[in-house]
């Protein structure tokens, strides 16, 4: 079951590359693998925690005010992440900038809270938060690797190809758009090929 869940979170319903949710942080912080992984972990943490809390207290939340309640829960964990980063990873916090507080409006998190945690039990919600967070983090890392290598010829801050001249555009805004477009097109291409083969 775990395997299926993993497959769902990473491939079939990948939050960024398939569902196109949480695009803003995905593009803004994927300039380097460090940033991407940092953001991925932070978001996953918030995702799992909020899923836990919401699935625990879902019975006591009135239907009408559920969205504000979710937001408050999410915002609480975002604040925890924010303060932790500030205290222990000041450099990463600086790099991620306003996108740390903006985790609160990340539609992946609110989306899972609304679509999954509010309807499922604790165990399933934890697994869902974990696999979705993993999918989010992996997608971010893929984008980050492509952009960091092409844009600054580095990976995790280390030089990759000697003699390769990086294309700065990939760590600028346009490069972000092109990278995700390319990755999505590849996914589409293989999916269409598979579908074409089946039919």
């Amino acid at each position, binding site marked *: 079951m775990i395997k299926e869940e993993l497959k769902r979170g990473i491939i079939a319903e990948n939050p960024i590359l398939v569902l*196109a*949710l949480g*695009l*803003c*942080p995905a*593009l*803004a912080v994927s300039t380097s693998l460090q940033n991407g992984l940092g953001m991925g972990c932070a978001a996953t943490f918030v995702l799992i925690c909020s899923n836990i809390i919401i699935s625990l207290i879902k019975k006591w939340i009135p239907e009408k005010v559920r*969205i*504000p309640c979710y*937001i*408050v829960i999410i*915002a*609480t964990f*975002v*604040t925890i992440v*924010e*303060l932790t980063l500030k205290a222990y990873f000041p450099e990463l916090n600086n790099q991620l900038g*306003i996108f740390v*507080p*903006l985790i*609160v*409006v*990340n*539609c992946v998190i*609110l989306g899972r809270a609304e679509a999954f945690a509010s309807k499922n039990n604790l165990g399933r919600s934890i697994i869902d938060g974990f696999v979705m967070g993993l999918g989010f983090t992996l997608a971010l890392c893929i984008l980050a690797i492509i952009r960091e290598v092409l844009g600054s010829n580095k990976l995790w801050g280390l030089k990759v190809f000697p003699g390769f001249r990086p294309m700065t*555009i990939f760590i*600028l*805004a*346009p*490069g*972000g*758009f*092109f990278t*995700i*477009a*390319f990755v*999505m*097109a*590849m996914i*589409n*291409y293989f999916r*269409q090929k598979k579908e074409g083969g089946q039919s």
Partner: protein
Amino acid sequence: MNIDFISLVQISIAAVFINNFVLSRFLGLCPFFGVSKKLSSAVGMGMAVIFVMTVASMITWIIFHYLLVPYEVDYLRTIVFILVIASLVQLVEMTLQKFSPVLYDALGIYLPLITTNCAIMGVAVLNAGKNDFTQEPYSFIESLVNGIMSGIGFTLALVLMAGIREKLELANIPRPLQGLPIAFVTAGLMAIAFLGFSGLNFFK
């Protein structure tokens, strides 16, 4: 509150062109890609965003500087801002429905989408943090101008995008690129063009 015309113009230029919310800061991408298929809805969304952004930047500034900072609870910024924005959107929706049905019809369907639009939250957080020009938080007027102009910048990008996407409806896009990928490529080319504005300064 010292109103400095030059800095206001510079803030506006930066917000609309140089650091365009969508094409340079990556804020508000979900509505940017979601609502840019039709020009009419792009205009509606743009107007709604300008409106909410303006009000949000005013209110969050007041709360931040007169509540959070004096009581040294500015770490609650995120929670407070998102609550304020969520209730603000709700309030705007109700007010519009009651007092201006015409405007409500035009903007109504976009308002719920705005709550999770990171552009609104983004402008509030940006206004509270250090800015690019003076490395100090914006004044009230500066925040206000930044809010309006960021909304205008968002709308500009959104409307241009919608125009292009309507044209792309008629093009023969290769199959793997159809849908979102081509929208990203389009946004990328727009972002390249907007690089032309970098360094724009009318007072150098």
